[in-house]
């Protein structure tokens, strides 16, 4: 994914969150030297084509000076339009910022990002949380990857290592152990994830050894709720991008899939990578993972 053949698709509704994401998108384009498509899906009942086109051409205007940038306007339903366009592209990375946080509860809100993550088998980059009018914090040189369970595969871990090796960033492997309570006994039924600190440390270190060599690698393990520990870990590492498995990013909701609460409060970029078959992964890495499961 992290190569010049990658195709960045920046889906926008011209919200403040989309504007706030522009520096991060520019950095993706600069690092990967790849093609950028700015995609807008408009509702033809609310907006004329020429007005939608005018808005699209003025949004992220500096991208017209980028080496390979095009703008695509589609009419219809946003989720359908984005999904249909992305399916036609190969080696695509979808950049999809969140909607603006108005501060009001949205009980009937259906998450477009969660729908896209469920529908598409491509990596999706997004932001945890943006406030209208607030600039997005931008750091550089630190990259975090969240390992939750051995079952989630290693695709995101390999991509993170490749990206860190390419950019010279420090790679932080994050793992949060579950709290010890009455649910602990049933935990092993659902997952082969380690419950003790020593096992988790051993697991993480084994995986670290099997990765593509990176300049600096650090392992961080904490115990507690993921929702509380993840923002603290991200703050401590100073990472501006978290790479996670797609399945851990989406939680089932009563109105459809939604973004897991643990990720919603993060103010960094999040890259959700879909699970790929184990056969395509690094065999050493796969052995390290299966050792824990067994």
């Amino acid at each position, binding site marked *: 994914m992290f190569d010049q053949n990658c195709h960045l698709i920046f889906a926008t509704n*011209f919200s*403040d969150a989309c*504007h*706030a994401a*522009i*520096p991060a998108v*520019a*950095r993706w*384009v*600069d690092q990967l030297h790849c093609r950028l498509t700015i995609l807008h899906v408009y509702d033809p009942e609310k907006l004329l084509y020429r007005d939608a086109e*005018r*808005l699209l*051409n*003025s*949004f992220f*205007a*500096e991208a*017209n*000076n*980028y*080496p390979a940038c095009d703008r695509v306007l589609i009419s219809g339903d946003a989720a359908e339009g984005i999904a249909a366009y992305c399916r036609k592209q190969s080696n695509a990375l979808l950049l999809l910022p969140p909607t*603006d*946080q*108005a*501060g*009001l509860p949205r009980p009937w809100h259906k998450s477009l990002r969660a729908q896209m993550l469920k529908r598409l088998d491509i990596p999706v980059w997004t932001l945890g949380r943006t*406030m*209208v*009018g*607030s*600039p*997005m914090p*931008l750091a550089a040189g630190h990259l975090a990857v969240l390992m939750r369970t051995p079952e989630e595969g290693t695709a995101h871990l390999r991509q993170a290592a490749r990206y860190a090796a390419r950019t010279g960033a420090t790679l932080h492997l994050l793992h949060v152990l579950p709290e010890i309570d009455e649910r602990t006994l049933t935990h092993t039924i659902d997952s082969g994830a380690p419950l003790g600190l020593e096992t988790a440390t051993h697991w993480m270190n084994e995986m670290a050894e099997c990765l593509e060599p990176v300049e600096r690698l650090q392992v961080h393990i904490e115990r507690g709720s993921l929702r509380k520990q993840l923002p603290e870990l991200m703050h401590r590492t100073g990472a501006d991008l978290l790479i996670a498995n797609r399945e851990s990013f989406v939680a089932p909701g009563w109105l459809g899939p939604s973004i897991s609460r643990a990720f919603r409060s993060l103010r960094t970029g999040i890259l959700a990578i879909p699970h790929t078959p184990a056969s395509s992964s690094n065999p050493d890495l796969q052995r390290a993972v299966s050792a824990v499961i067994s």
Partner: protein
Amino acid sequence: MIVTDRIPLKRIWPFAWKRLLVLLIFDCTVAVIYSVLGYHKISLNGLPVAPLASALTIFLAFRTNAAYGRWWEARQLWGSLVNTSRALARQFLTMIDDDGEGETLRRNLMLHMIAFPHALRCHLRKQTPFPELETVLGKEQAAHLRGYNNVPAALLVHMGNLLRRAKQLDLVDSYRWVAMDENMTTLANIQGACERIKNTPLPRQFDYLPRILVDVFCWLLPLAIVDDLGLMTPIASTLISFTFIAADLMSREIANPFENTIHDTPMTALSRTIELNLREQMRLDERPLQAPSRSLGDVQPVEGFVF
């Protein structure tokens, strides 16, 4: 920059709702304790709310003026950048002779001049300028600039070197060289002034004290008016509190004009204007220069905001 007449409530609401909700609960509690439970000692009827509000208004006005001063200075600096860029481009086109390397030097100087506003905008917004610079200046030049932390300053140095080369080749005389160098110094001064605004926040006392005073005032207000308004206290108190909180928030937001928000100086639109003007000058000059043709248009407002 906001160009629409109407500012939607959602611009203020995310920052104000928590404070307002807490105050509304407090106001309701005060009204119930006073009017329903009959505990009248809670009323501070003698509290001089009006003079307090006047004092607070002076504080807020002072801060708003200071914030607006920063915002307006930023806009003036970018206006000055537009003018200086055009003037300098005219000098490059008309004052450098054509002999030998003249045309190449003129073209390079013009492209550097086009690149400068883009680089300065990205520098102020902490955005990478290199994808744009690769297109404007070429991959080789852009790669060379990657070694610099301050890319716009490096561009000025490059332009100075190109001018020096023109002087060595006798393509400009000393008078013309001095005239062009003065305008390049103006560019450096504009950059320095923008960096000063970006890196020097409003004095913390200006920012912190009004916020604390607004909070104190909003908490005292229901205690002072409950005697007169009774159960209507929450409505009046919340509305008055909202006015002060909104004034407090809005003045804080315009204090930082280079943060990639809706309150920014419209640097993307202005740098596009400069590029369009300069490319037009290159094309329509008596001695037209070859430049990569790009289909660029003016940047229009997007949903009422120009960036």
